[in-house]
């Protein structure tokens, strides 16, 4: 059966259900809507392919979605026109309804606007690791209303865009290298210059530590139990866990070997000897 026959059959069945003039109108309207949706789909695919590799993924997704929604809107307007409904009256009514809806959809609209800001400002991209409040995870999608994160313990978190705009967002993987700050405490009896030499050697021997930028060693402050040292090590961002685990073990082993004592808070309690008079 070819398309012409199919349409003819459809027209016959429609004409048996509805008056003759209306069936033709419905057929024309359906064809027009189909054509509009098909055209917008083609535009969406072509634009999507053209943008791939030139703009970030989330912006490409947004443009594709806008084209699709524009197609739907155009199709709805066409349907109204075909049915002879006056759009100006409808739009007037929509204006009044819009005020009511605006109050109801205040949060959603705020999220949409925040989403647009997020997309234009680009504080993070897909696959970045970000921290929002006490949530840390990999960005899975950036949508008009919210972003979705996959946390490291494999939870799926949806954060409204409005929250993102209002709070501090830390992009952990924005730059290719990072610094791991390890705080150490050494005994007051230890020679600090010797400790510095040992720490430099530990950093040099750990394969996850970058030689450049050089490790940062800062004698930070005098604490009650000992001297606090900041040991900052630069690493390639994907090696965080390897470095974190290995450097702690390296420091422990080497300090033990070199006789460097890591103090811990302790309290010496001196018991006064009881005198004879108090005992009797």
């Amino acid at each position, binding site marked *: 059966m070819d398309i012409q026959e199919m349409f003819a059959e459809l027209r016959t069945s429609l004409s048996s259900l509805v008056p003759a003039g209306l069936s033709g109108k419905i057929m024309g309207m359906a064809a027009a809507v189909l054509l509009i949706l098909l055209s917008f789909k083609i535009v969406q695919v072509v634009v999507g392919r053209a943008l791939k590799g030139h703009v970030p993924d989330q912006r490409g997704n947004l443009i594709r979605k806008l084209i699709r929604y524009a197609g739907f809107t155009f199709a709805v307007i066409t349907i109204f026109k075909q049915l002879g409904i006056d759009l100006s009256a409808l739009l007037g009514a929509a204006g009044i309804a819009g005020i009511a809806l605006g109050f109801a959809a205040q949060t959603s609209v705020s999220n949409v606007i925040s989403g647009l800001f997020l997309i234009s400002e680009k504080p993070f991209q897909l696959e970045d690791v970000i921290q929002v409040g006490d949530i840390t995870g990999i960005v899975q999608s950036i949508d008009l209303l919210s972003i979705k994160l996959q946390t490291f313990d494999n939870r799926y978190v949806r954060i409204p865009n409005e929250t993102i705009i209002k709070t501090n967002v830390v992009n952990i993987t924005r*730059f*290719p*290298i990072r610094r791991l700050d390890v705080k150490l405490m050494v005994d007051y009896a230890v020679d600090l210059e010797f400790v510095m030499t040992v720490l430099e050697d530990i950093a*040099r021997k750990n*394969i996850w*530590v*970058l030689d*450049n930028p050089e490790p940062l060693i800062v004698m930070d402050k005098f604490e009650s139990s000992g001297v606090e040292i900041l040991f900052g090590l630069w690493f*390639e961002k994907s090696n965080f866990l390897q470095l974190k685990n290995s450097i702690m073990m390296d420091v422990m082993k080497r300090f033990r070997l070199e006789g460097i004592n890591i103090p811990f808070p302790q309290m010496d309690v001196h018991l006064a000897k009881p005198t004879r008079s108090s005992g009797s």
Partner: protein
Amino acid sequence: MWKYFEPEEALWYQWRLHGSHAYLRKNGDEWRMSFFPVEFQELRPESGGPLPCDPPESAPIEFAVTHGTRVALRPRLSELPYLIMARNDIRILPGADARFNVALPPMIRFEIEHGPSLGETMPFILSRTWFGDKTGGSLCLSMPTALDPRCRGEKEEENPLNTWDTETFRSLVHCEINVRNESKVAVNLERLAIFTDLINIYERDGILTTDLVVVNSLADGGLKMSVEENRQRGGGTLVTASRVGSSELLVRRGVNFLRTITGL
């Protein structure tokens, strides 16, 4: 050492690479491999193989299954660039050039003749370093050796562990670098990154050499890095560089990052 050979069934073979070892055993289509990497600073002047040996003790063993009869241990330059520091600041004045010899530790892999690679590793433990600023750049292998200009007619120090000694360190890839200053200002060379995308490896009498690497400091303030291919100097080509589309990239990267490194 790098040639294809037919291993006997169920017999372990060993390659010595200046303190590092590689092992291989064939049993039908099953291949067992083991690698012992060492710190690059602990290089020993010994290399050779394949030699029949005892099974490697307490070593992690890798397996590969494929059909093949002849196999070889082959070197290849790391995909990460090698970064080497100058021993002292080197000032190259306009119109002058300086030559350097660098011994690069290769990656090694077992290759079936006309077939796939069975396994690959870096036989020397090297730390990583960053070439660029904190917001962008390249991850590099940090060479623990220092860069010295090669002076004509001057004998190098007689140090048995001088890695530039091609006869002693046959398992390292010996690379010659020429830095030319075609600009009108002096260039201070503090460190040099060697991008390996374009570099072929040749073998001559068991010694591994490369193309001549040329770094040009241009009049417009940019830097251009290229290689001058020279097949006859190296004899047989052991590894051919993957050149597709990499030439321009190499130059661009060179311009972006070498400029900051050399202090231009």
